[in-house]
């Protein structure tokens, strides 16, 4: 009874504090205007500077590549952390074999089988045209990763996981990571400052344009694809089957 009483006090305070926050922030946000022409310089010079039509990609992979490197590192760290820490959880498969396992999930396999190639194609398309149209390495790679989930649903997680030769995948992931970081540090060899594009810019609008944005999209796409695959497999393995 005492616990419940104290809890309501806590909840009341929490609600009051949150409401004050709401009022304070909404009040001051109502006075906030917008500086006209912010970001105009990117629109004006973006295509000329980077050769990419999609200015978001130009900023993401050229003007502010340093931030993106951090983002890729954060993602890599998430994959590493998930793998490292999920080992703390027992892999329960041996016990499940002797048990009579009852699961409620009945999933349509055909849909998974049909959808998977379509989604994979979309993902690849997004990666390759990242500098021309919306998309790019991350969304494409993550979509490719969800193809793995679709396959896992359609054919069982274990079969998809078996394809995952851990050594090869590890190596591949590391190589992607190293090359993403190292590529930006190669610039001085071509007489450019660090993190500056040293590829030819090409004619804007063509597939082969935008300097190294295409290459970066491919690398990031590969990295994210493998990363999501590995994470998904870890989650599947340490809980049983999809």
């Amino acid at each position: 009874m005492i616990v419940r009483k104290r809890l309501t006090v806590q909840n009341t305070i929490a609600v009051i504090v949150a409401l004050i926050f709401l009022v304070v922030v909404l009040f001051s946000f109502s006075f906030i205007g917008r500086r006209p022409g912010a970001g105009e310089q990117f629109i004006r010079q973006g295509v000329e500077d980077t050769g990419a039509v999609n200015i978001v990609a130009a900023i993401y992979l050229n003007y502010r590549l340093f931030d993106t490197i951090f983002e890729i590192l954060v993602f890599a760290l998430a994959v590493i952390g998930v793998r490292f820490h999920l080992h703390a959880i027992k892999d329960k498969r041996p016990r499940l074999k002797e048990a009579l396992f009852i699961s409620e999930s009945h999933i349509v396999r055909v849909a998974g089988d049909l959808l998977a190639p379509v989604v994979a194609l979309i993902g690849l398309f997004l990666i390759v045209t990242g500098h021309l149209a919306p998309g790019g390495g991350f969304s494409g790679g993550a979509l490719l990763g969800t193809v793995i989930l679709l396959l896992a649903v359609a054919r069982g997680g274990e079969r998809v996981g078996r394809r995952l030769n851990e050594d090869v995948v590890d190596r591949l992931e590391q190589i992607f990571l190293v090359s993403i970081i190292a590529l930006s540090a190669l610039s001085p060899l071509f007489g450019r400052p660090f993190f500056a594009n040293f590829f030819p810019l090409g004619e804007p609008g063509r597939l082969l344009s935008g300097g190294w944005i295409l290459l970066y999209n491919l690398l990031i796409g590969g990295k994210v694809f493998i990363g999501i695959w590995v994470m998904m497999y870890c989650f599947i393995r340490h809980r049983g089957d999809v």
Partner: protein
Amino acid sequence: MTQLLLPVLFFITGALVLLWPRRAQLITLVAVLSSGVLVVMLAARFFDYGPISYTIGGWPAKMGIELYFDEIGLYFSALAVVLGLAVITYLWNRRMKSHFYLLFNFLFGSIYTLIFAYDLFNIFVAMEFLTLISFLLIGYPRRPYQIWAGLKYLLLSAIGMGMYLLGVAVLYYHTGALNLGIIAELVGGELTSGRMTCGLAPQYEAWVIVSSALLVTGLAVRAGIFLFSMWLPDAYSFSSPVVAALLAGLSTKMAGIILIRLAAVFPIDSVLLILGCITGILGGLYAIFSHELRRIISFSALAQVGYLLIGLGVGREAGITGGMLHLVAHGLIISLLFLAGGTAIAAVGGGSVSLLNAKRAVIPPLARLSLLIGLLALGGFPWLPPFVGRALLSGGIESGWLKAVVSLISLTGVIAIVRLLPVGYISDRNSPFFSRDSLPESLSFVVLLLPILFFFPLVRLAGIEINLGDNLIKPSMILISGILLWHLVIKERITGTLPKGILKLDWAIISLVAGFSIIYLLIGLL
């Protein structure tokens, strides 16, 4: 350019650790040593030419990301090198997984970025990276309470960083820039131009108030300020000693750096002053009422942040330099304390004060000496590093009540550590200072002790004028009166603990959100 090389170096070595896990230790050592060389090169250029600015990729600062090397960078990169070396030597004989070294390398990469960062969003990204690394480091040995402490840390700092990003959003839409230098010009310009909007005086414009309140709240969570970072005591005292040393010595200090940079831009002096007083006094009180070595150190770490904030709040040159130097000095001291404390606790088999005092003969002598020096330094013993910062700081303070508060914080600091001083008492002279088994550990203590003992001359070498004689009397008096107070008055009366509720997750979040409103009101009113 060297600014950029430092983080990139550590990212590449981190990736190399992934590729060759067996050579992890060696790669990390090489990385730390070469970072030392780079820092020396940077420092040499700094002394010749003054602050160095570098925009990544050669774009103008408005479009690209700027890295900026100034005094702050000088002191903190030196701190990072020393700490890195100390931790590597401490771990030399222990078999850590390559995972740890990977995190270590990435940690240093993000720390060097943050030391030089001058772009608000770059700060956000690097800070989030640092959060995740610290989180993984806290949970690295995978014991449940460490996992829980890590989770608490992550939840709170993620809320904080969410607020920070909201503040960045407001700033960007108002100024059209993310670079702190440009924003400073605009804020300053609009402040002096006297343009009136929404009927308020110019510096109280809504966007300045709300964005600076959001930014400060976000950073306060990371910086170890009372009410905001209640994850800190658990995270420091549950994680393994090396991790605690890295967290307390470097990771938490980064938010302090950003606060120093922000204080130069926004009108947040008085808020920081008040937060500093609260943090200092409450942290000190909690430290007095704790009964475990690592808890005491953790809470005193909270209290010590108070000096930085007061220094920033005073706003004068001496105050800011004092606060900053105090932060560096405290980084050295606290990592020494955590490392030596880890050795001591491992030798004794428990971390409570009474146990440590009773079994102190078991503790290796050098660890005991390091503990003694560290504790004395925390108490403000003259000549030892934190003293330098405090002396400068009190030189910058003029108002009477502030002087009283600073003295009170020092006094609580002394009282908190008096109980532990007997640990350092060396009774048997026979046990050797260096034994072969513990050589790496002893070496790491020496690595940390050297800059601590020679902090004063080093600071003077760096060109900061400080007079030892003038500032001797007051700290000594505080030290002596603290010891006397403890032995004569307090000793037997402290049995219980202060309310622990605020350390619980839910209350920590509530106090964080409430803290935002307080900061907002203070910025708006003062």
